[in-house]
């Protein structure tokens, strides 16, 4: 893993990193798993609709190196994602954050489910009532 970080570090553009005091200290396995997890949830800015993990574009490798570097420094998953969102915009996240504009996206399905079930229940009840008064048959 370190070998990868080192080789990719060379191509990493010299950027000043927000060096927060490292709060976490991860083991190598944790760094690997967290790094993979984060890079699965972020979109490669270069290639068409691929996540960072799968993308082979140079920028994706740089960003992966960046993620591992920040994990090495003990940054949390959230801090890393925030850092990348600041740099590349909201679009880099595959999981849109909750806001007024994404409320429909997050609550739409639940609302729809309840609305359809309620409508179906009302329609069926009405039809039952109708059938009872009309001698139970339509044929």
């Amino acid at each position, binding site marked *: *893993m370190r*070998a*990868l970080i080192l*080789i990719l570090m060379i191509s990493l553009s010299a950027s000043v990193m927000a060096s927060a005091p490292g709060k976490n200290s991860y083991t190598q396995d944790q760094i*690997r798993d967290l790094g*993979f997890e984060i890079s*699965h*949830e972020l*979109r490669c800015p270069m*290639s*068409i*609709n*691929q*996540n960072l*993990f*799968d993308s*082979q574009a140079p920028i994706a*490798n740089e960003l*992966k190196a960046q993620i591992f570097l920040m994990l090495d420094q003990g940054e949390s998953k959230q801090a890393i994602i925030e850092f990348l969102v600041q740099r590349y*915009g*909201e*679009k*880099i*996240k*595959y*999981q*849109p954050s909750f806001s007024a*504009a*994404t409320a*429909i*996206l997050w609550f*739409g*399905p639940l609302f*729809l*489910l309840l609305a*359809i*079930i309620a409508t*179906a229940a009302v329609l*069926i009840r009405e*039809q*039952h009532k109708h*059938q009872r008064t009309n001698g*139970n*048959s*339509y*044929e």
Partner: protein
Amino acid sequence: MIPELGLILLIISTVSSLLLAVIPLVALHTKNHYLFSYVKTLTGLMTFTITASILCLLISFITDDFSVAYVANHSNTQLALLYKVAAVWGSHEGSMLFWVVAIAIWGCIIVFSSKYRDRLFIGRLIAILAAVIAGFNLFMLFTSNPFARLLPNFPIEGRDLNPILQDIGLIFHPPLLFLGYVGLTVTFAAAIAGLLGGKLTRTHASYLRPWALLAWVFLTGGNAFGSWWAYNELGWGGWWFWDPVENASFIPWLVATALLHSVVLSHRRDSFKVTTLLLCLLAFSLSLLGTFLVRSGIVQSVHAFASDPTRGMSILFLLGVFVCGALTLFALKANQIKSELNFTLVSRDSVILLGNIVLVVAAISVLLGTFYPLLFELLDIGTLSVGAPYFNSIFIPLTFIAVLLMGVAPLISWRREKFSALRPLTILFIISLAIAEALSMLTGSGFNIWLFLGTTSATWLLLCLSYLLFRLRHQGIESLARKSAMIIAHLGVAISIIGATSVSNFEQQELLRMGPAQGKVVAGYTFVYEDTVKVDAKSYTAIQANIRVTDADDIFIGYITPQRQTFKTNAMEVSKAGIMRNIFRDLYVSSGLQLSDTEYLIRISYKPLACWIWLGGLLMMLGGTIAALTGLYRLREQKRDSSNSSLLAATMGGVA
């Protein structure tokens, strides 16, 4: 000469489809059976000419006629014959032609089959199918003519099929998907025919059932093969990415699944006819919307191979015409279609209804997520991405609910069921919760909601199916045979869920720099990079890594050979993963960037139970096929049983 012949045949079929779209409806309106008798002739003519037309395109491919633009752009002299054939449907124009041909043939089989005795219904149905064919033929003739010439400067050697598409997957995946869409077109036409006639009888439902099942089988196959192909070919190691193009074919599948269960209700119980009709319209509309999404290029996708914005408008126009027309008709006629509802809350009817609602909500949610970034940009609020994490968090809980209902439905009776019948089901549910909890504890990585939902739903479904088999043990082979299709298909769902849950939660992977003589242990398997070799194939050259794999007991089990392929014709580079598979796990290695003279970025994955995902898909297809064939067989039996008293003339006089 041949391409011009193809074009003329295409024009003839367009004209005959326009006639066929009008004549049956006029004949029924004026009760003119002489006119109605032209239905068969016109259907035959339309189908023959359009089929001959696609054969002309095929001949142009086989004879390397690169003066035809479509052939020149998608074939070259080096291409193997099999891929030349597959290239016919490999891109936009050809796939449209293929789609129309398939609709015509399916319609022709229905018209010429004597199984379907309600000729009025079939007459209306073929008129609608012909209207759809006419729409797409005109679309082809005016905006994407597959026979357009490239004269005088045509490429002598041709160009090339997109190298990614040169795979056995291309031979199966798109045609299966198109056939699924064709099936949905047939069910759409049947729904419109029902609405025009103002009724959907049990006979109509018995026609609709095998068609919906076949459409569903093809769609299942199309999705499963597509996912399989992406897993093997695209080199990104995923099997489902919630990409817009994947969603475009998955959304109609979800609605088709709801449709085929709703048709069962309409057929067996003579109820929920309006729901069935609405689902037919919805499934077709969503499949067209998916085509629009893929072909217009308005969404960014890894799999869009034939996108072009100008085509988008034409498809959108056709979509508008068909969907608006259908919905208007639905609004006008739906209240004439009455069904009797006769069930209580605890009954198979209500459980299937709830399941269908969940499926439709899942489909609409996926649609919402797919279109949300687009809406966002159109409204100028900003940009965002909606991807796998979002879809999983919405879709997995909905699947969980659907699977709970799936387990219950076959175990309770139609109409009404006693509350006490739910007692064994509660016990089964508690057992499956306990098993899921135990599995969760065994893995020891804390509580994971996705793992928990996955294992609970899979065990629940398996337990319910076993309980069903246990209850059927005294009822003889016949009732088992009658239920076999459902049991196999539901078992397929359980198997797919097990595969998906296992791969998503227990995959082990490494991403590392590797060169000759370096090794790595992943999940107990030792991967040793032996050497790098150059491979020269007919259409590409490749740099291949030979990776030796030994298992935990140090026994040699084989080589995995991932490649970086460079195509000769257009220098495009693709990564072809090396996969070593058995029923319990896939070992997946893909090779990426060259990091130094001898070293590459290598990705090694251990994917437990990966192939169960597609194995489940195959079982679903098998179940669906059995059910469809049974339905068609029953129709034939009914025809034999009933006398020939009801002639066309009599029914026409009576009904029209």
